[in-house]
């Protein structure tokens, strides 16, 4: 038990270290970008008609603490970030945590739902692909899963949207119907949300499923060929027990292990799908911050939070593995 606690603490330390590394990378990249927050905000102001002088920019810099050395700023940024405080957005002048708040969690929820959907499909399909001896079934499953790779999410999203516009007259876009957009959470709003959220979830799951099928298939093919499966069938274990209790169970570990990186891949697609489906509630900020307004504070905060979510998932999956897989447990506990 003590060793397990030690492992948890060490693993948490590693996650923490990763986050710090990530924050440094993200922060540095944001810094490398030409222009800083003061310039950006004031140039935005000037485009609105205000008259801005160099002195104004300098004053704004001092106010934002941009005159301090790089590492000091990173330090204060990271300390605040760990408290969930990202300062104010460059352009919108609003507190980022408030701005993101619920929207971030909605995005995360959608991504996790896609991940879940992807594996709900991929695990049975991958297992069938790995164990079936029918070459036609195998090849067609392979082709379908490759199509998932070759047909990018945004194209699929687009197609679905266009078709639905033409044939149903509903764009299926957004996460809420108009009447619920700014309403408080209620049962109806939840229903409305679910009625609309399935599309982004489905689209994000599309290529995630293709990836997941490949992973499951490869892992299962490895496991199925192992001697312990032959030994089990020599003991009279047959059918589903032979499949689930033996290779499937042992392939599960690496799958759980890869969940964090799968989430990473889904996050990759999120902004693009959000853009097409005009997921204003969840994704617009991302697009807005990243692509439109060059808001480095906001962009940094979003990327940092996404990464934190992945690091968190990786941490959780490692702990789950350590709890469930005796081999991992052994290597930890010695």
């Amino acid at each position: 038990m003590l060793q397990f606690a030690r492992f948890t603490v060490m693993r948490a330390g590693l996650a923490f270290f990763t986050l710090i590394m990530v924050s440094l990378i993200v922060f540095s990249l944001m810094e490398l970008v030409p222009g800083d927050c003061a310039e950006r905000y004031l140039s935005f102001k000037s485009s609105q008609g205000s008259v801005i002088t160099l002195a104004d920019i300098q004053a704004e810099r001092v106010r934002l603490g941009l005159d301090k050395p790089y590492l000091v700023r990173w330090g204060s940024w990271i300390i605040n970030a760990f408290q969930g405080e990202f300062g104010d957005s460059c352009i919108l002048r609003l507190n980022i945590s408030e701005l993101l708040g619920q929207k971030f969690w909605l995005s995360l929820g959608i991504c996790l739902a896609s991940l879940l959907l992807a594996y709900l499909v991929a695990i049975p399909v991958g297992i069938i692909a790995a164990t079936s001896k029918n070459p036609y079934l195998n090849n067609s499953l392979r082709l379908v899963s490759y199509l998932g790779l070759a047909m990018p999410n945004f194209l699929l999203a687009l197609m679905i949207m266009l078709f639905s516009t033409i044939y149903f007259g509903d764009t299926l876009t957004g996460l809420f119907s108009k009447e619920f957009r700014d309403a408080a959470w209620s049962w109806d709003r939840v229903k409305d949300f679910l009625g609309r959220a399935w599309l982004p979830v489905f689209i994000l799951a599309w290529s995630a499923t293709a990836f997941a099928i490949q992973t499951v298939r490869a892992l299962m093919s490895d496991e199925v060929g192992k001697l312990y499966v032959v030994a089990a069938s020599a003991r009279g274990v047959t059918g589903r027990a032979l499949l689930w209790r033996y290779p499937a169970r042992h392939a599960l570990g690496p799958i759980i292990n890869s969940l964090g990186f799968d989430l990473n891949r889904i996050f990759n697609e999120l902004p693009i799908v959000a853009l097409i489906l005009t997921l204003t509630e969840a994704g617009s900020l991302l697009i807005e911050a990243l692509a439109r307004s060059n808001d480095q504070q906001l962009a940094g905060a979003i990327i940092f939070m996404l990464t934190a979510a992945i690091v968190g998932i990786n941490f959780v999956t490692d702990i789950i593995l350590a709890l469930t897989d005796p081999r991992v447990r052994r290597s930890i506990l010695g």
Partner: protein
Amino acid sequence: MTDTANIDVNVDQKLKEAYFTASQGQLIWTRFKKQTAAMVGLGVLALLILSGIFAPFLTPYDPTIAGRNKDYMNGAPNIPSFCDDNGCSLRPFIYSYDRTRSIQTNFRWVTETDTSLEARRYVVFFTQGDKFTFAGINFSTHLFGVDKGKIHIFGTDSTGKDIYSRTLQAINTSLAVGTIGVFIAFVLALMIGGVSGYYGGWIDSVLQMITDAVRTIPTIPLFMALAAFIPETWSAETRFLFISIILGFVGWPTLARRVRTHLLTERNQEYVLAAQLCGARAGHIIRRHLLPSFTSYIIVDLVISFPYMVLSETALSFIGLGLKDPVNSLGVMLQQVTSADVLLNYQWYFIPVFFFITLVLAFVFVGDGLRDAADPYADTKK
């Protein structure tokens, strides 16, 4: 009877000797050739790459605004035919058309084709047309064209640019972006993964931590953040280079991990120890043992990571952060299908989409086939 048997034995013997003296590369190729899907993929891929490289020659018009057909914007594809009501011709032809737009047509373009014999436009080969530079030399010969007017076999876009010409050009660009991206990622991966795998120990641990940290950052959001700051003043070519470089910079960690794993397994092979026990220096071991054993894996890795580079470029261009006119890329082409108008009225915009899907599929199949062929256990799995 015995003679033929002897010949058989001889042939058999020769085949065997060929197998025995076949190098790893030849063996991989033999195994690769057995996979139909991968071979088809390779054929398609070769075709696409070649048509990308020779795009200026294979296409009739300049793919940029310079080559546009002012009189045929958003025009439907012209399909050459051999026969019509007026009889047949050995030379394929298309018809002349006349496009009008007025209040009667709701301000839409309406095309009237003139199907009379005189209005036929015959397809001609090796015709002179727009100038282009290939390998530093100026040319103006194109594979085909028509004797009068213009031919657009995939139709034209809203500015009158020939979609066929743009598509082939786009393949070229996307491949180039992918190549530069993969190359940069590969060089980084080789350096970082190589150092990590060759030295091992704490250097390895630290580098692994950094690689893992970089790997957790979702690349496209990061990429968007970076690409968004590309100054508007940059030329299309500079943007192109910059985007390829960014693609390479975010793509290295996965490759680096694989390089490291290969290196670690390879380094502990007994034949490497045998060379060390001969007193071979690190340089000799790397050159003679590590690199050769490595190349097959690296090629597989590169081929497999290529479609992801192309996909990333497409995604970026698609949201308008990537390449811009006059540079055509598949992403730019894909971006144009985003309006409902296209689906309803100008379906030929979707033609490049199929090229894109085919290109990615071809890469995936070839990569898969190569991986199976290079897998040393492929034989024992039978």
